[in-house]
């Protein structure tokens, strides 16, 4: 009979789930017990303008990603091509989103495992300087979100075709000064996470990420696999399948029927050439078959997006900003797909609209759904490759492994 | 110019628990005595202080102690909200805050030479108590003086000891709604005691304080005595934030309860639209 390794929910991950291991048969299963909110149903009947208001509430850790995926889907449906300022500002929002989410995961959820603490706030006493750096990074990423998106959680300024309100030059300059101050903290983070003792694991990963020009997280149009098996975003629904399992309220995703891992590690594997100068140096130490290295990949991304934010702001200031909101085109297709790389990987929103702008259909595939299958598989590999380890030790390792994927179960059950 | 919103520090020197929700606090100034600004009095009976606790705010509270006393003041506080709860958590020796005294108080000099009827119930005792202390000091200048005091039960009668002392100088008529087995006094409404009062209505003043709808009480208790509305004084209760006539919370029609009141004669109250 299956016996739970953790009596209770896995701590320090977003959302509710537990690992169930059948010790005799040596099989691992991930039970997701998050309640269903049925967002795809909630959206039907709402207006196009309400979609990107509602979907960020799928996840408070990556609301900007959901917000922009929705905006993009609706714009696609309405035949809108936003202006260059809008795109730069949205990319800037996304850098804030990435740093926000990664800082939360790395310092508050993951790090305690590696330095023998129960909770991140203990670090405040043990190493106030280090903790101060983490807080500063949190602050600067929150500030990017406040400044561009209107709020650090759940944006208020974005709209279909552009922004309700764009920041003025002086607030961008303020952001720039803040980012210049936190640059050393971002580098320090990459160094710190390079030095951590990650457990060895060869999980033979297939990595999947959106791909476009450079290190694209906002406008990649190809779903690209490390096994050289690419799909256009348009075909996301055929390529990424979702399977319902009786023990989980989250569906389990796969790519062309194979387990894949998405997220920071995958992005670096696929888009690594586009990393910023400083970040690139750290990428060499990544083991692309070890899911534990997703932590390090996130740390490298903090540094990368830090550099990118500075670049984007300089560009915005230099080129000047155009706040026009682009109107829908005549005879739009009324069906659209919006894909972005959320902190945890590819996020797909699809929306169908009626003539009057009401939603008739919505489909959302989140990164964690895609990762769940891989989490189970890697857990299995961990079990299989450590026959001698005690249950206690295995339990600890498996929880660390789950955390390394940075699963967002709230996202996965939307 | 002074920051009139900053209170002074005072120290609690005595606390008496009068009932479950009512406590008497005696406090003194952190330094020095209370100034005798009002012709030898530290305040005019009927005036109030803004009493408070740092960080919790302040509330208008009538002064109970004798206006001749300058080393301490006493207030009676019923626990109803933020500030009054905070006051109730204080212990002897703790610090509290004081501003004031504020308000007009009773027109005490016009009371001289007259009979005085004071009606009070429950928590309405503080301003009346100060008035009684004042009258007792100059007892010979007043005619007949009555205190009609009604409470729900004998336990609800506040300041019993004080009542005994006062009883040596003025007439006190007590009544309760719900007597205990030991209670030997009057049972029933305050209005039923009016028949025991002997005054000259043409040369008398009355003061009223306490719970219940003012008008009905007035109709039942004082109208039968025949005292003119202009010589019936009532202390009004209104929300207050500043206590010095700026914040606008306590206004009633044309007047500010914190400076023009809290004591009004009934004629004035009648004219006010709310």
């Amino acid at each position, binding site marked *: 009979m299956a016996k739970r390794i953790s009596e*209770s*929910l896995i*701590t*320090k*991950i*977003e*959302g*509710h789930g537990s690992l169930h291991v059948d010790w005799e048969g040596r099989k691992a299963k991930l039970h997701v*017990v*998050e*309640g*269903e*909110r*049925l967002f*795809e*149903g*909630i959206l039907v009947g*709402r*207006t196009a303008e*309400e979609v990107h*208001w*509602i979907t*960020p*509430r799928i996840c*408070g*850790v990556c*609301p900007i990603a959901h917000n922009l995926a929705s905006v993009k889907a609706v714009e696609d449906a309405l035949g809108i091509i936003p202006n260059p300022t809008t795109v730069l500002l949205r990319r800037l929002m996304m850098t804030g989103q990435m740093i926000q989410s990664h800082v*939360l995961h790395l310092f*508050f*959820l993951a790090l305690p495992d590696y330095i023998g603490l*129960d*909770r*991140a*706030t203990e670090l*405040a006493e043990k190493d106030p300087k280090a903790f101060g750096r983490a807080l500063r990074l*949190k602050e600067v990423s929150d500030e990017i979100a406040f400044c561009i998106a*209107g*709020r*650090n*959680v*759940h*944006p*208020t*300024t974005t709209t279909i075709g552009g922004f*309700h*309100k764009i920041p003025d030059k002086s607030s961008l300059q303020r952001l720039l000064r803040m980012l210049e101050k936190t640059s050393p903290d971002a580098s320090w983070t990459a160094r710190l996470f390079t030095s951590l003792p990650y457990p060895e694991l060869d999980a033979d990963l297939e990595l999947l990420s959106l791909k476009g020009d450079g290190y694209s997280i906002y406008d990649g149009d190809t779903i690209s696999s490390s096994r050289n098996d690419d799909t256009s975003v348009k075909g996301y629904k055929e390529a990424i399948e979702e399977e*319902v399992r*009786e023990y989980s*309220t989250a*569906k389990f995703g796969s790519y062309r029927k194979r387990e894949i891992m998405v997220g920071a590690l995958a992005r670096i594997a696929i888009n690594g050439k586009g990393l910023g100068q400083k970040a690139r140096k750290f990428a060499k130490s990544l083991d692309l078959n070890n899911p534990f290295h997703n932590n390090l990949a996130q740390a490298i991304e903090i540094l990368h997006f830090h550099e990118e934010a500075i670049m984007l702001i300089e560009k915005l200031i230099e080129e000047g900003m155009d706040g026009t909101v682009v109107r829908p085109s005549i005879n739009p297709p009324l069906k659209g797909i919006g894909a972005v790389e959320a902190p945890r990987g590819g996020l797909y929103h699809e929306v169908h609209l009626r003539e009057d702008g009401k939603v008739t259909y919505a489909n959302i595939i989140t990164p964690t759904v895609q990762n769940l299958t891989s989490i189970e598989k890697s857990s299995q590999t961990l079990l299989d490759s450590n026959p001698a380890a005690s249950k206690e030790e295995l339990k600890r390792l498996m929880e660390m492994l789950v955390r390394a994927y940075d699963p967002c179960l*709230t996202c996965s*059950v939307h | 110019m002074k920051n009139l919103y900053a209170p002074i520090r005072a120290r609690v020197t005595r606390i008496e628990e009068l009932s479950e929700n009512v406590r008497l606090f005696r406090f003194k100034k952190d330094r020095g005595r209370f100034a005798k600004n009002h012709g030898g009095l530290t305040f005019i009976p009927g005036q109030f202080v803004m009493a408070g*606790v*740092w*960080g*919790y705010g302040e509330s208008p509270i009538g002064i109970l102690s004798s206006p001749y006393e300058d080393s301490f003041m006493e207030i009676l506080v019923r626990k109803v909200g933020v500030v009054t*709860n*905070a006051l109730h*958590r204080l212990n002897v020796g703790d*610090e509290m805050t004081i501003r004031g005294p504020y308000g007009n108080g009773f027109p005490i000099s016009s009371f001289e030479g007259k009979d005085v009827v004071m009606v009070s119930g429950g928590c309405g005792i503080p301003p009346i108590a100060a008035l009684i202390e004042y009258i007792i000091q100059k007892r010979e200048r007043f005619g007949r003086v009555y205190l009609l005091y009604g409470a729900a039960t004998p336990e609800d009668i506040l300041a019993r000891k004080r009542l005994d002392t006062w009883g040596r100088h003025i007439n006190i008529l007590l009544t309760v709604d719900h007597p205990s087995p030991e209670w030997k006094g009057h049972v029933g409404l305050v209005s039923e005691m009016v028949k025991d009062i002997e005054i000259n209505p043409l040369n008398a003043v009355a003061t009223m304080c306490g719970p219940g709808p003012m008008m009905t009480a007035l109709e039942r208790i004082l109208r039968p005595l025949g005292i003119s509305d202009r010589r019936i004084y009532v202390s009004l209760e209104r929300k207050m934030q500043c206590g010095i006539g700026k914040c606008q919370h306590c206004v009633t029609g044309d007047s500010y309860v914190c400076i023009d009141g809290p004591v009004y004669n009934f004629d004035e109250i009648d004219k006010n639209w709310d």
Partner: protein
Amino acid sequence: MQREAKKLKVGIFDFTDCEGCQVKLVSLRERLLALLERVEIVNWRLGQEKNRMDRFDLVLIEGCPITQDEIDLLKLLRERSTHLIGFGTCATMGGIPAIMDQKERAKWYNKIYGPQYKPRGIDSLPLTSYVKVDFLIHGCPVDENEIVRVMEELLSGKKPAYRGYSVCFQCKLAGNPCRLINGKPCLGPVTQGGCGAICVSGGSPCYGCFGIRDTAQIEGLLDILKGMADKEEIERYFTMFLRYTKEYNEIVRPFMERENG
């Protein structure tokens, strides 16, 4: 000044929701550390490994109790806590999940998960549908300054107070053009202030996530909204966050029915 000598025992729990309010808690940063000097967090699944379930002086609950497990845990927490506080609009009013009512659920389970699926979720209702709640910190998400204000009040032994003013106060301070005057719906006038009018300042409408304020003049607002929006749109505004409020059921719905009839 009064100060509790012993640290308050606090539990932070999350039911079904987006966890954005807990993210806001972390966004307090230095102020979170200051708070931790005064309280002991004995249970916080998102924040720590070691968690206890004995007794709580204070429990903050984020999210909507959608599953039976959550409803049971809620009842248990009520028994074990002195103060139980709803944290965020999902907990206080049902929030975004409450857009979908129980009837609709069956249909969507079928569409999204297929006919074989055995749902866990029962209904998305606010905490108050199941237990007595001592205070509601509204907001989707909650606001950092409001968290601090309520914590300050609790730590100093006050009963936390709701804001008596409307969103319009901070909306005017922010210098926003008024949506209603420009013919765009807004629930700001009937909504409790304290959020900084952050949505209107960003250009979005206010859907009232901070809860309906005390004695709000809802009919007056409905009269204004009638002039700029049809019934369906008004309905959509009020059901974004407020479907399970007393005011929605007792004032808005009857008003709309009257308008129809």
